[in-house]
């Protein structure tokens, strides 16, 4: 039984909590911390800090480990709270509404100490007050995300025709669109199917967001569409090679951070060209998707649109024309191939190795003299010299066609 004095004290603290909650969630947490005389951290369900008292505990986020129920109550537990730098022994309560977990209220304490039972009523009230704050926070985040995605859609599909509109809207989320930006898209090799799983896509987006935030700060944004993650990033390098290095570094970081156990085995990235004016970013987006598509066909992990050149032209060209060209250049060899040795793949390797006999000999495991003999045989079949520039250009083009139109078995 509680004494009258305890009841009176409890009423006073509950009143203080309600008044503090009326101000904001930080004030509520400060009041709770003051009441129980211990540091308090309130986390959202995803581990993000909602409020902390003292303030310096509010870092990027925490993970809850070694969770053990207390008094067989599933909503009260002891645990270890792991942050980026420190970890704390804690006593926690799950903040729930209609059995849906909204977050956690954690009191940092020593291993042996426990929260006196006289605070139970006050903590229960605090938990219900946190429900309101966390739900408000979630709805604000959802609304923010909805607005951000609508803005992204309009930006990436050229629906906003004025630079100043884009720049002023971008400032809402801290994006400086008066600097040149480019668009990159990240997806899986088989991007038409795998990322239909929205859970995998969300995880990938979170990974990309985290890497971008660590490298670029707030001046980047990502969005998720049906099958890919799109990021708009500010280009910092002065020349093309610097920009390329930057983007490759970024993608490598994404690959490193991405946990392959999340159901997606391999990622590919397409990069559009940088544009000074934000109204042109829709072009960069389309270019990035083309780069991804063609790069995926070529088996490349990262592809830059401004390096696509001939690939892009050949990919879009009429297939019948390409088929005719392919047979015109390699026809005699294909006919010969039906009966004899694999000269076509030797020629392909020779082209891939930049027409270097030494390199080709290494990758095909042939002796140089054997390779020379086979190449001269190819020359006689095709009735042309492999040293001729025109022939070399044709061979590069036809093998590009072969790779790009790999789905079409007839070529």
């Amino acid at each position, binding site marked *: 039984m509680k004494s009258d004095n305890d009841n009176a004290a409890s009423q006073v603290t509950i009143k203080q909590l309600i008044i503090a909650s009326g101000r904001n969630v930080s004030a509520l947490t400060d009041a709770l911390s003051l009441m129980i005389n211990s540091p308090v951290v309130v986390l959202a369900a995803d581990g993000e800090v909602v409020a902390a008292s003292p303030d310096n505990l509010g870092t990027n986020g925490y993970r809850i480990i070694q969770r053990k129920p207390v008094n067989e109550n599933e909503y009260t537990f002891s645990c270890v709270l792991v942050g980026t730098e420190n970890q704390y022994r804690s006593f926690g309560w799950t903040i729930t509404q209609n059995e849906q977990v909204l977050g956690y209220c954690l009191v940092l304490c020593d291993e042996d100490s426990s929260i006196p039972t006289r605070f139970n009523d006050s903590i229960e009230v605090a938990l219900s007050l946190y429900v309101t704050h966390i739900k408000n926070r979630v709805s604000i985040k959802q609304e923010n995300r909805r607005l951000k995605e609508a803005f992204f859609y309009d930006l990436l*599909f*050229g629906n906003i025709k004025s630079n100043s509109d884009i720049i002023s809207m971008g400032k809402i989320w801290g994006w400086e669109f008066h600097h040149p930006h480019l668009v990159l898209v990240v997806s899986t090799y088989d991007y038409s199917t795998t990322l239909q799983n929205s859970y995998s896509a969300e995880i990938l987006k979170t990974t990309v967001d985290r890497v971008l935030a660590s490298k670029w700060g707030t001046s980047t944004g990502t969005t998720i569409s*049906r099958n890919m993650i799109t990021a708009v990033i500010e280009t910092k390098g002065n020349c093309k090679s610097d920009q390329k290095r930057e983007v490759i570094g970024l993608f490598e970081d994404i690959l490193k951070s991405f946990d392959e156990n999340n159901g997606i085995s391999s990622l590919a990235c397409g990069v559009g060209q940088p544009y000074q004016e934000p109204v042109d970013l829709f072009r960069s987006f*389309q270019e990035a998707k*083309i780069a991804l*598509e063609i790069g995926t*066909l070529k088996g490349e992990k990262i592809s830059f649109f401004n390096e696509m050149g001939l690939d892009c032209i050949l990919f879009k060209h009429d297939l019948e024309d390409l088929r005719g060209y392919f047979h015109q250049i390699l026809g005699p060899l294909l006919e010969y191939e039906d009966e004899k040795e694999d000269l076509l793949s030797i020629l392909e390797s020779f082209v891939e190795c930049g027409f270097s006999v030494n390199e080709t000999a290494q990758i095909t495991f042939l002796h140089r003299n054997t390779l020379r003999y086979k190449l001269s045989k190819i020359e006689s079949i095709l009735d042309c010299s492999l040293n001729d520039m025109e022939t070399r250009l044709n061979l590069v083009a036809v093998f590009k066609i072969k790779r790009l139109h790999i789905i079409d078995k007839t070529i």
Partner: protein
Amino acid sequence: MNNPKAFLVDVSLCIGCRACEMACRNENLTPSHIHWRHVIEIEEGVFLSMACNHCENPECFRVCPERAFNKRHDGIVEINSSLCNGCRRCVTACPYHAPQYNASTNKVTRCNMCATRQDRGEIPACVEACPTGALSLILLNDSCNSDVVDTIQGFTDIRLTRPSIRFHQIKTPKRWMISDDEKQ
């Protein structure tokens, strides 16, 4: 998340009557030489009604120097004719030959999926006019029917543009129309 709209075509049901073409022209009052929707015969007796596919990666959109195109949140790609300078880059870039150049106005026009009708809650004129039900409108994210496929034989390569069009798998007709000559 947006749920774009797409045309769903059942080639097995299309009889090549061109009612969709006529309905499109009546609705949009296009000149006689402009065909926003056109019916092509992809093989003998197999017809395909084609218009702008409002692609996920529209090439017309990317190449336009005047930034005249935009894509609505429901996936409809629109062209602002007042911005068009008649350069025809979109005409050559589109693999489906959807943008149509009008020499008399020096502008390009194209199917807008009857956006104004759709805003009123009506279906596009071509879909409404199709007497066999070969043409219909679907929401892309909801098209998980196994009978619905991304492409069919005879249709242009979809890899680069990802058109918002889906097809019913081609079925062998249960009944054939036999002419008097064939009967004899």
